[in-house]
């Protein structure tokens, strides 16, 4: 038997309320300052570097995002830290916060389904992140225009826009994860710690572990080692394992999108290089094609994490 009414009644109301909570919160103030400072720091480094080494680069504008200087990391690597932290910061107490404030049962006694509450919270978080990221993106492009003085081409704008969208998807992955843990753990502090721990594991430890695990499962062939090459089997397994982490996926997409000369994400065989003009840029559509599996995988991860949180939330007792 189908349940009565729409699962989405009240969705808009929940979303607007959560959005206004996010936008007026102290947490958001901190994130905003972080956004501005990160943009300035990364741009400063990038522009110094670009000015020093201005070559005839057809994609000079994209270098804004990827160039780093000395000790300062590039804008992209700044973002890959900042985005998960922002998402976790917005999501870690979304459901258990309602429990702890004892508002959950009162809200669920109104004529809405739990679906609307959870989905509304997720959308509000995603919109908040999007607002921050779009403003960050505009800030970087605007400052870049002012400081470099060369207008970006259509392709560069398109590529940086795809980069923005992918970053929002990446934020969605961590937001969904944070919300899953906010459903699972009644204590907000536990949820935040577990999510941050998983983020550390996925971003810093897993890429190293993936190599070690791959070498154990498929030991490197001494013949390749003698030539100073990676064993293909080991390298492939390592990459498969590393790609279980959304951080790896995001990094790969960014490389493909922001560096038009990227031809493949993974080991390249000599046969694949036949007839290729090394260093020649690919059109955007081809770059997208290279990164497409990673993009789809990230969207799927976000959806799976959200669904997991949804299932647990539906079955959870509302009483405190």
């Amino acid at each position, binding site marked *: 038997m189908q349940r*009565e009414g729409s699962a989405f009644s*009240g969705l808009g109301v929940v979303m607007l*309320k959560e959005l206004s909570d996010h936008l007026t919160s102290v947490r958001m103030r901190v994130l905003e300052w972080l956004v501005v400072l990160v943009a300035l720091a990364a741009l400063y480094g990038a522009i110094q570097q670009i000015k020093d080494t201005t070559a005839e680069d057809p994609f000079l504008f994209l270098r804004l995002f990827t160039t780093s200087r000395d000790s300062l990391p590039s804008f992209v690597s700044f973002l890959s830290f900042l985005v998960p932290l922002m998402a976790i910061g917005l999501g870690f107490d979304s459901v258990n916060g309602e429990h702890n*404030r004892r508002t959950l*049962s*009162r809200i669920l006694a109104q004529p809405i*389904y739990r679906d609307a509450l959870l989905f509304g919270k997720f959308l509000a978080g995603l919109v908040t992140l999007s607002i921050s990221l779009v403003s960050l993106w505009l800030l970087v492009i605007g400052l870049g225009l002012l400081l470099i003085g060369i207008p970006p081409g259509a392709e560069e704008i398109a590529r940086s826009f795809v980069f923005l969208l992918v970053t929002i998807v990446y934020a969605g992955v961590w937001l969904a994860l944070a919300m899953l843990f906010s459903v699972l753990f009644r204590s907000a502090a536990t949820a935040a710690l577990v999510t941050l721990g998983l983020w550390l594991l996925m971003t810093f430890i897993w890429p190293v572990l993936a190599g070690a695990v791959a070498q154990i499962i498929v030991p490197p062939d001494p013949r390749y080692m003698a030539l100073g090459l990676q064993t293909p089997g080991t390298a492939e397994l390592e990459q498969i394992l590393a790609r279980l982490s959304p951080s790896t996926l995001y990094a790969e997409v960014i490389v493909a999108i922001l560096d038009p000369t990227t031809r493949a994400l993974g080991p390249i065989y000599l046969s694949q290089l036949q007839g290729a003009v090394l260093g020649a840029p690919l059109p955007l559509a081809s770059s997208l094609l290279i990164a497409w599996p990673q993009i789809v995988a990230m969207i799927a991860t976000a959806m799976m994490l959200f669904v997991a949180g949804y299932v647990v939330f539906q079955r959870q007792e509302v009483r405190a």
Partner: protein
Amino acid sequence: MSEDKVIEATGLTKNYGQAVAVDHISFDVGRGEIFGLLGPNGAGKTTTILMMLGLTEITSGDVRVLGFNPAREPLSVKRRVGYMPDTVGFYDNLSAADNLRYTARLIGFRFAEREKRIAEALERVGLAEVADKRVATFSRGMRQRLGLAEILMKGAQIAILDEPTSGLDPHATSELLGIIRGFKAEGVSVLLSSHLLERVQSVCDRVALFSAGKIALMGSVPDLGRQILGGGYVVDIEADGAGLAERLALIPGVSGVEKTGIGKLRLQADRDVRPEAAAEVVTMQGRLKYLGVQEPSLEAIYTRYFEAQPEQVLKEGVRDAA
């Protein structure tokens, strides 16, 4: 379902794994009635309430709220029923009115109606002056009143209140009970749960006494009094004088005299024997320090009922320990 029943539960059961939280309970609540679910903590009151709202799954049995099945038509039930949970919570960063506005938007009231209803509801519970103050500054009693305002604003036909008076001082309690009586005057049925027997005795038309997931007793307080306490009178007397107990036992209608302390006696009688008892003390030239008759209180009914069934109390004790 009959016209004047707003809630009908038959054989309602809830299991958490092996543990039975609510065990085949049946009751009904009439239109405009104040019905009390009373019993110790953990007796299954809140679980029963959550099942009626469709907020927790029903293991077996059936409940109809205003003719709707809460498991299948939760939105219809929740649109017509107001619920105030145990220690109700509000968003501290929002004002009282904004908290109600959020609920009103969830219910789907349009702007003009929303503002009118919110203003009226806050007025009724005496929070109109602090409508724009943040809830963070509110006392416990004010929060409970805001919870009632939410139900008023909703225009609910049934108000379900879980432990509405717990943690309140006597003044706030009587204020709250006054508002609850106001519900009844408007024809709103009220179902309230409490572990504080004597506080709610005054407002409830009928009560169901819960024990270990079962309804042990159900009916109006005077009815239960007659049923359990046997309709007799218990007169407590504190006086001195040798042989007073023997003299008092001779008063017509007194069936037993029990010594409850130094100079304290308890008489069981089939009528109010206070005048005769006083006269006896006076003729013996004793000094009368206290003379009182016990009203049938829920506390007494409850205690007496479980004294009579030590086995069940024992079982309950084991459950609490577990």
